[in-house]
């Protein structure tokens, strides 16, 4: 009897083959992350740092113990939600860059809870509702402009990011300022805060808000008619229209759902982050700054899938928490900004479909280039002769 290879190994081989030919999305994300980290290492080397030591410090600072993992998770919490904003709209075929601004509005709205005296348990829910509403309302305008005037959502959401940044600063400084400490807004009252989940860390129960919302989005996108319509409209708008899907309604609802998600992200930062539970106006609202943009990187690495986003957010949360450790690490302090360089490089790598395939392509291009140079150099002397 002929021996056949066990099924497990063939499956593994097929997996390896698919990876090498660039067909497996999850491994492609890993590859992009590796490429990004390598580019970061190269730059650190050029600037005179020891990349190996820096990454060890980063890794320890991100996942080295329960405290480190908690702080990574706490940084991942808002990223999950801003990533979902980008992903929902991308699934519907739009580039919604507006998470940043919608998150500002959500954060400001959740601070409004401090204006009321509420029994415990109500404040948290009211804060989330305020934030979700503010985010949704803020995303309505770009959606409306797209549907009625045909304004490209990339342009309008970017403009809205700037408008909301200045508006949030104005509200922070003039309308919701703490009378005792003018550099920050009113703090969320103790009864309305989300309690800390792991003692001594920044991680609070808001993590469950993020995870629950991600699961809700997963259910909506893959187990409801509405989700089916969103994905169909995103994959092939023409076919979706012939199939009787109201694309205007889909665009509108995807934007609203994205706005809700980004608004919640703002609320998780304000209502669940020790120690102040308030927005600081100075320095351009440092707690909130760039959370929306980082969320886009998370969404891409998470392949715009809610479950992928949860994993990618843990990675990016780790980068950002570990970066904080890395910048104070003994003899080799690498500034925190390196983390954003790495993120940018990862996103650049993610933009190349079937990343692994570019290597043969690069080889071919290189050969063509060498050939061209050779031809040019051959032509040079001939012209001189003539």
């Amino acid at each position: 009897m002929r021996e056949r290879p066990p099924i497990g190994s063939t499956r593994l081989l097929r997996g390896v083959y698919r990876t090498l030919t660039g067909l497996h999305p999850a491994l492609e994300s890993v590859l992009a992350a590796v490429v990004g980290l390598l580019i970061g290492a190269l730059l650190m080397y050029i600037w005179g740092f020891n990349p190996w030591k820096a990454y060890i410090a980063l890794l320890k600072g991100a996942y080295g113990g329960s405290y480190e993992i908690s702080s990574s998770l706490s940084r991942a919490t808002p990223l999950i939600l801003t990533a979902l904003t980008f992903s929902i709209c991308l699934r519907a075929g739009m580039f919604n860059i507006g998470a940043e601004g919608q998150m500002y509005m959500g954060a400001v709205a959740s601070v409004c809870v401090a204006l009321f005296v509420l029994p415990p348990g109500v404040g948290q829910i009211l804060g989330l509702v305020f934030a979700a509403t503010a985010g949704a309302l803020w995303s309505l305008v770009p959606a409306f402009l797209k549907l009625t005037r045909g304004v490209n959502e990339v342009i309008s959401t970017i403009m809205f990011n700037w408008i909301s940044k200045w508006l949030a600063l104005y509200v922070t400084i003039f309308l919701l300022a703490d009378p005792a400490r003018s550099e920050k807004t009113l703090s969320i009252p103790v009864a309305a805060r989300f309690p800390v989940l792991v003692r001594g860390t920044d991680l609070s129960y808001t993590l469950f808000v993020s995870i629950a919302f991600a699961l809700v989005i997963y259910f909506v996108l893959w187990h409801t008619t509405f989700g089916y319509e969103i994905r169909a409209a995103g994959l092939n708008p023409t076919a979706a229209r012939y199939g009787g899907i109201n694309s205007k309604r889909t665009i509108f609802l995807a934007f609203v759902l994205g706005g809700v998600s980004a608004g919640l992200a703002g609320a998780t930062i304000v209502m669940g982050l020790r120690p102040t539970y308030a927005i600081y106006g100075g320095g351009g609202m440092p707690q909130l700054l760039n959370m929306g943009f980082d969320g886009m990187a998370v969404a891409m690495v998470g392949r715009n899938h809610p479950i992928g986003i949860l994993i990618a957010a843990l990675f990016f949360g780790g980068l950002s928490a570990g970066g904080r450790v890395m910048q104070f690490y003994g003899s080799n302090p690498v500034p925190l900004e390196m983390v954003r360089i790495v993120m940018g490089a990862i996103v650049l790598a993610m933009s190349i479909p079937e990343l692994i395939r570019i290597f043969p392509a690069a080889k071919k291009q290189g050969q063509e280039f060498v050939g061209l140079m050779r031809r040019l150099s051959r032509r040079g002397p001939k012209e001189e002769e003539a």
Partner: protein
Amino acid sequence: MSLSDVLSLLRISLHAMVPIVLTAVGEIIGETAGLFNIGLEGILLLSAFAGALAAESGGAVIGLLTGMGTGAIIGFIFSVINTYWKGTQMVTGIGINLFAMGFVAFGLIQLGAPGFRDVSRAAELAKWRTPIGAMSPMIIVALVLPFLIFWFLRRTRAGLILKAAGEMPEAADVAGINVNRVRLIASVFGGMLAGLGGAYMSVAWMGLVTKDLSAGRGFISLACVVFSGLNPLLALLGGFIFGFFQGLAEWVKTLPAKPIPAQFVSMLPYIVTLLVVSGVIGRVRFPKSLGKPYIRE
């Protein structure tokens, strides 16, 4: 508002116009060929940084040239990813922006000046003394360039080839045009102009580098391109309008009695951009293959 106020407002507006017009005209060339680059913001930031450093060691002209070179390199990377490697243009642009934000902030820290670096007066491009005040010679470049590019796009064979690559790459390919190479050249040239705009900001206008120097100008230029409908002359007009409102915001901030809070003044350019784009957009038509990689069948 006296005459001197009007003149100083005009002067600020003209200066604020330059980076937007240069970047927008560069992007018009890229979009005509079918590449939509939202990484302009990153190009402006990186070239402002590189230009300032080069200007300090080699003078203002070297600084401007370095800025152009930086922009060209990023344009090259962008176009290689999005032509030969069939990338997603939007994502590449976002990556460029993130990378630039990190890189410039990192670089400023490494140079011992977190978040802020002054360019020495000697390294700045000399300004011309005119009756309305000191004017940068780069304003002339920004005023003339759109006309040259308009002529190039409408009246030359190369301009027609660009249009073909953006409008119908299949037909261009059949006609013997190397679509990817045309797009590559367009993107490099567009990046070069954006780089010039970035270096202008640090070397010839503000005389400093900060980690958020570009302050959305790359995105405003994109809006300006949408407003212009890929016509460089309208981009000049749009650039002036956006520059005017930025100038107005600056000018209101200097008033002793503030009629409205500074935050609302800072919003003005963005609100105007939105209004202009949503008022004008209906009649604008873009190349058919804008944003799509060309894949030969």
